[in-house]
């Protein structure tokens, strides 16, 4: 690629990996892929009304907000790989890593066998209808937290397929949080298969910490708690229980929380660790050193009044090769890649964030334009 180095990088000048795009999976789409007796359940659910990410028994929301008119245009969905590829082309995005829509909330189901079956069906559906190296659409294997042993089998099955490049760890409504030892089989399998694990949060009201938000009046309060606070809480438990120590080759990615909470976690955990080292007996180094080795997706990118502050923020956690672009397409709070590219990063940092770091992390093929 030849370009005038004095000109700012444009969307077509960089290889863009979008680490978070959402495939919509209505119940009837997964029905052919799920075991009996759950096929009957999905067939029934497919006949009912399907409100956006709110299907009782499939993607239940405790939606307590009074609705107002003309705020519903954020309810976009992408239902086929072709549609996703076309829309990512419109956004100049080369590669997309797929996450679900409705099953973002899979962790809330009390029925373990049903949840595990849904996870298997989703992974099979992705393999059959979505992922392809040619289209640049890659999968993240859904690891159902209710059944870690089954999730580990799924990771080993699909981890051998080069169209799957990560493991998706659901965060919404999760109990216990991802640091719990019960999830060790998932981490063992992900490390063994060389797949990064990606924690992805989503809005939910549920009885479990930190999702027990039924008393909170405003969505503007619940949304960041659901996302950033949930990621922080999970990170704390993973550090305290030594996940990065016990699985040193496991890459850990946080999705849909932006980046500005990372320095707080580092410094706060270091402070706690200095005072109560027995609280994290697995650690061989201060918590911040492990946190700096993890990866953080940009969306929702912070938009400080002084854009330069975002560069400072990334430098606070030595994140120049740890921050990776995500749009969250097609959800209501998506970030256009232009928004991130136009931040006052230097050219190399822009290339790293927009695609190069993710390309290395997910072992993606080198595109012709940068080979």
């Amino acid at each position, binding site marked *: 690629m030849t370009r005038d180095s004095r000109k700012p990088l444009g969307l077509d000048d960089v290889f863009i990996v979008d680490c978070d795009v959402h495939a919509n999976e209505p119940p009837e789409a997964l029905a052919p892929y799920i075991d009996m007796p759950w096929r009957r359940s999905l067939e029934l659910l497919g006949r009912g009304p399907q409100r956006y990410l709110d299907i009782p028994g499939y993607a239940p929301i405790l939606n307590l907000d009074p609705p107002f008119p*003309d705020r519903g245009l954020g309810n976009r969905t992408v239902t086929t790989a072709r549609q996703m590829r076309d829309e990512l082309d419109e956004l100049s995005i080369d590669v997309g890593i797929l996450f679900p829509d409705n099953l973002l909330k899979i962790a809330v189901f009390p029925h373990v066998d049903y949840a595990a079956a849904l996870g298997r069906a989703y992974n099979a559906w992705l393999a059959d209808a979505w992922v392809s190296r040619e289209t640049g659409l890659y999968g993240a294997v859904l690891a159902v937290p209710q059944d870690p042993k089954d999730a580990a089998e799924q990771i080993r099955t699909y981890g051998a397929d080069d169209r799957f490049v990560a493991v998706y760890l659901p965060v919404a409504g999760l109990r216990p949080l991802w640091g719990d030892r019960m999830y060790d089989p998932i981490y063992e399998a992900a490390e063994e298969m060389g797949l990064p694990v990606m924690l992805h949060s989503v809005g939910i009201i549920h009885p479990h910490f930190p999702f027990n938000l039924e008393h909170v009046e405003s969505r503007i309060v619940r949304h960041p708690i659901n996302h950033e606070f949930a990621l922080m809480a999970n990170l704390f438990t993973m550090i305290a229980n030594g996940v990065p120590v016990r699985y040193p080759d496991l890459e850990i990615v946080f999705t849909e929380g932006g980046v500005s909470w990372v320095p707080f976690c580092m410094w706060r955990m270091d402070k706690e660790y200095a005072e109560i080292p027995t609280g994290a007996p697995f650690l061989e180094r201060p918590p911040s050193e492990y946190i700096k080795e993890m990866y953080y997706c940009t969306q929702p990118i912070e938009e400080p009044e002084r854009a330069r502050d975002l560069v400072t923020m990334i430098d606070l956690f030595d994140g120049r090769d740890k921050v990776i672009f995500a749009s969250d397409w097609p959800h209501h*709070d998506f970030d256009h890649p232009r928004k991130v590219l136009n931040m006052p990063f230097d050219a190399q940092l822009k290339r790293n964030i927009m695609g190069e770091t993710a390309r290395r992390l997910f072992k993606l093929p080198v595109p012709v334009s940068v080979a």
Partner: protein
Amino acid sequence: MARIRVGPADEIQPGQPAFVTHGDIEIAVFRLDDGFRAYRNRCPHQQGPVCTGPVSGTLVATADTDWRLAWVLEGRVLICPWHSMEFDLDTGRRIRAQSERLRAFIVEVENGEVFVHVGRQAAPAAARSRA
């Protein structure tokens, strides 16, 4: 500066803007109670197609409403379809963030035909049409 014909004034209905293009600039012309406004179809936030969003009202609670929730500005609030940012169609300014605004153009109505002037940006007050 170019003068672009938009079309007959009586064909532009409230909440249903008329669109014209000049080069790569897309402009939407809205009808309000006291005339027309023209804005570039690009949101200052993430450059989304703001003028294709719905026209509605918004929820406020101020000292003027005795801190009670009130639905106001019905028919005057343009909502960006990308991230739901709200703009006052009367002024082009973002509601609750007055420093951000849509790019406005001067609108004229002549013999029942609407025209916009493209090439220099109008101050919000100057952008109002002589309806």
